């Protein structure tokens, strides 16, 4: 028993632990997700985050220890943003043909999501630095962190808000779209990519190829629009 405790103390402080725990939990959550027919409530990111947070809390492992291993996965967010050029390139004819509609819809949806988040937070009396961390919540996490830093928010919190936004969009989007009615797969996918960024887009890619392509498109458009415009708009506040 003593040996086991020593072994655990050693293992839980090496980067191997965070990396292994993340990937193993995610693979299990993904298997569960497929098992229940990709039901929105079984979202693999949601369950992986919950299980890992409980596991770390129960075992008393500090977040930085976990992150020393998980950072290898976290690092790939940057190259993943660069990789968004690929779906944009594949859809370049469509992008050119419908450029005005795509940019306008992305602008309207992104502005509505960001402005309503800040307005609701303000009405509910949230402090200024929280409001500034809420503003980029519809942009994919690494870019949201960069924007939050520029406009006076808390980058780590902005990343958490972005992940929560993505999860809420991925879990509840289907029901909202069904309630609105008459939306095609490309409109659903584009809305998920715009308002629920990478996590919403991942959901769209799993459900339908058309929705996935438009979600990838939306993700790329949103990243450029938000990174360019949000710091400019934030100067007025």
């Amino acid at each position, binding site marked *: 028993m003593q040996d086991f405790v020593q072994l655990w103390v050693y293992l839980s402080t090496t980067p191997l632990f965070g990396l292994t725990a993340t990937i193993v939990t995610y693979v299990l959550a993904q298997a569960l997700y497929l098992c229940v027919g990709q039901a929105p409530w079984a979202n693999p990111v949601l369950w992986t985050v919950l299980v890992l*947070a409980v596991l770390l809390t129960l075992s008393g492992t500090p*977040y930085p220890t*976990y992150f020393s291993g998980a950072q290898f996965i976290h690092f790939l967010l940057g190259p993943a943003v660069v990789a968004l050029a690929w779906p944009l390139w594949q859809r370049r004819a469509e992008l050119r043909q419908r450029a005005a509609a795509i940019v306008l819809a992305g602008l309207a*949806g992104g502005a509505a999501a960001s402005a309503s988040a800040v307005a609701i937070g303000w009405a509910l009396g949230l402090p200024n630095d929280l409001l500034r961390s809420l503003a980029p919540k519809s942009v994919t996490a690494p870019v949201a962190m960069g924007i939050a830093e520029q406009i006076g928010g808390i980058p780590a919190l902005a990343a958490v808000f972005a992940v929560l936004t993505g999860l809420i969009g991925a879990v509840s989007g289907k029901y909202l779209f069904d309630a609105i009615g008459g939306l095609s797969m490309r409109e659903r996918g584009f809305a998920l990519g715009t308002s629920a960024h990478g996590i919403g887009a991942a959901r769209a890619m799993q459900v339908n190829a058309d929705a996935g392509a438009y979600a990838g498109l939306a993700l790329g458009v949103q990243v450029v629009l938000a990174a360019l415009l949000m710091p400019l708009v934030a100067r007025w506040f």
Partner: protein
Amino acid sequence: MAVLTGLAWLLLCQSAGEVLTRLFGLPLPGPVVGMLLLLLALRWPRIRAPVGAVADALLAHLSLLFVPVGVGVMTHLGLLSQYGLRMLMAIVVSTWIGLAVTAVVLRLLLRRRPPSMEPAEQAE
């Protein structure tokens, strides 16, 4: 090997993006500039297959990449217990507003195109 070559292209574009952002004080994050650079580089046919291979693999597991940041929620439990419900309300309602506005605006814009353009869409 294709995946490795593709990854090299992604990292090169990201690094070039970081350099350009810092050098010229651009208001865009480095990876976003990297994405725009890769979009230009994809005009060169030789890099398409390797970039496509690694991009498809990365984007297929995109949601895994958000897990480390997501677990970071546990470090903000103090703020969450103080403002949790209000923050959650702001996030949930604004996400729905964003989804609805985007989908409805795109539907309006895509379906108002003149019918003469429809055959072009078929060809694509």
